[in-house]
């Protein structure tokens, strides 16, 4: 039985504070780059295909496969920290990771030793991978679940910021599912040597978020 665990892990009710992060979308809405359902969808589609979420998900998959190998988990955790383009994106990953780590310490106490090894700067993807592997959730749905929770959170940020109707947000999600599925498959078979992306737009939007005059979101 893995499905209830998966649903718990990807639920927006998981208390990790995902809703407070927009990953640059707040800046892009403020500058008018994202101003409609179409521009939001196009931004998210290109991020899925070519953006930094590829690297984060690929490293999460590697941490899942490293089950029991502490050195490998620590390496991929350091790798995610080092590949975060900006301070806000890195802090986001660490804060969400810490929240999930605290939660798992209570609801899955056998994971405490590995989280102690990881220390304070535990990335969200790594905590997610450790939980998924602990509950024996199959990798193919772990990858889809991880991308889906990332996507639905950012659609939510866009709906709030642009603003869009809730139905438009749900429509964007549905339309991007084929890409979520395709990327989850591609990232599972990607070699370590081919982990790359283009994060220029995300990086600049996130850097400029640090100095945005009025902010609802923390990234």
């Amino acid at each position: 039985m893995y499905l209830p665990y998966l649903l718990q892990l990807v639920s927006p009710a998981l208390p990790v504070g995902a809703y407070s992060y927009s990953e640059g979308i707040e800046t892009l809405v403020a500058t008018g780059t994202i101003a409609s359902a179409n521009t939001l969808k196009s931004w998210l589609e290109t991020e899925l295909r070519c953006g930094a979420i590829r690297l984060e998900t690929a490293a999460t998959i590697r941490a899942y496969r490293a089950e029991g190998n502490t050195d490998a988990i620590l390496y991929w955790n350091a790798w995610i920290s080092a590949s975060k383009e900006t301070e806000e994106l890195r802090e986001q990953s660490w804060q969400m990771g810490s929240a999930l780590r605290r939660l798992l310490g209570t609801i899955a106490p056998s994971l405490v030793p590995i989280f102690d090894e990881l220390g304070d700067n535990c990335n969200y993807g790594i905590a997610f991978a450790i939980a998924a592997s602990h509950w024996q959730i199959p990798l193919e749905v772990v990858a889809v679940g991880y991308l889906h929770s990332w996507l639905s959170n950012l659609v939510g940020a866009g709906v709030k910021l642009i603003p869009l109707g809730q139905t438009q947000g749900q429509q964007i999600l549905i339309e991007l599912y084929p890409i979520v599925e395709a990327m989850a498959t591609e990232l599972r078979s990607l070699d370590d040597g081919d982990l790359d992306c283009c994060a220029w737009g995300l990086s600049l939007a996130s850097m400029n978020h640090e100095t945005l005059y009025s902010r609802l979101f923390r990234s």
Partner: protein
Amino acid sequence: MPTTASISSWHGKLDLAYENRNGKTQLIRQYGRSPLKVQRSFYPEGDSICHNAIVHTAGGMVGGDRLSQTIRLSPGSRVLLTTTAAAKVYGTRGRSRLHPEGIESQQTINIDLAENTCLEWLPRENILFDGSLFQQQMRVNLAAGSTFLGWEIVRFGRTARGETFREGEYKSYLEVYRDNIPVWIDRSRIAADDPLLNSANGLHGQPVIASLVYIGEAISTELVSEIRALSDGNIGVTRLMSGLLCRDRGASTVASRTAFVAIWDRLRYHYMQRSACLPRAWAV
């Protein structure tokens, strides 16, 4: 690699090793194989910092070219490296009947920085001709107390001639490790046939991208604000775990470099208590 490509392609190599001898940083070993070589050392700011310029004698890279560089700094040495000219990468896709897809031009750079060293890696820009395929792998290993500052400035297409980058691919990996732990991983890939050249996620229609990275000591938020003010907020600036990252996306390599020189100058006060000393090779 196909033999047809290797006949006319370069396998250039450059190995440089530096040592601090009684307070003077000296290039103690050098090996160059065409088309790479290094010009003689300059000391425009005293003995402790050795300035060198790397020359690519063939003028540019064609498909199938492979260049590899190894740079080692022994404890206490400080080096500024640049290149004498922009690195041109010529078009390869659709240029040959035997290899219509084209063949990559590859550059590998391995840098080892021992304790208490500093390397400033300030090459001229890369110009990617339409149809070029460029791959660069750069790895920097840092020991305790060492500092790395480097930049990369890239132009997609010879825009002054109205050329755009309609075909080809640019792939550049920069990986910085301290004591075998990754501290900065930047793996960029931009292909002409994905939407990135024009989309906001990528270049947003601009032909030039540039990034500057400093890895050394942690940087204060006050210094970040000062550095942002240097470019009136036009350049993205953020802190890394122990350093700083700047990204630029624009129309001109000269504008990017000018802005980066100002940032480098400010950072140099922070890590070396000196102002920037422009490499002599740029004046030519």
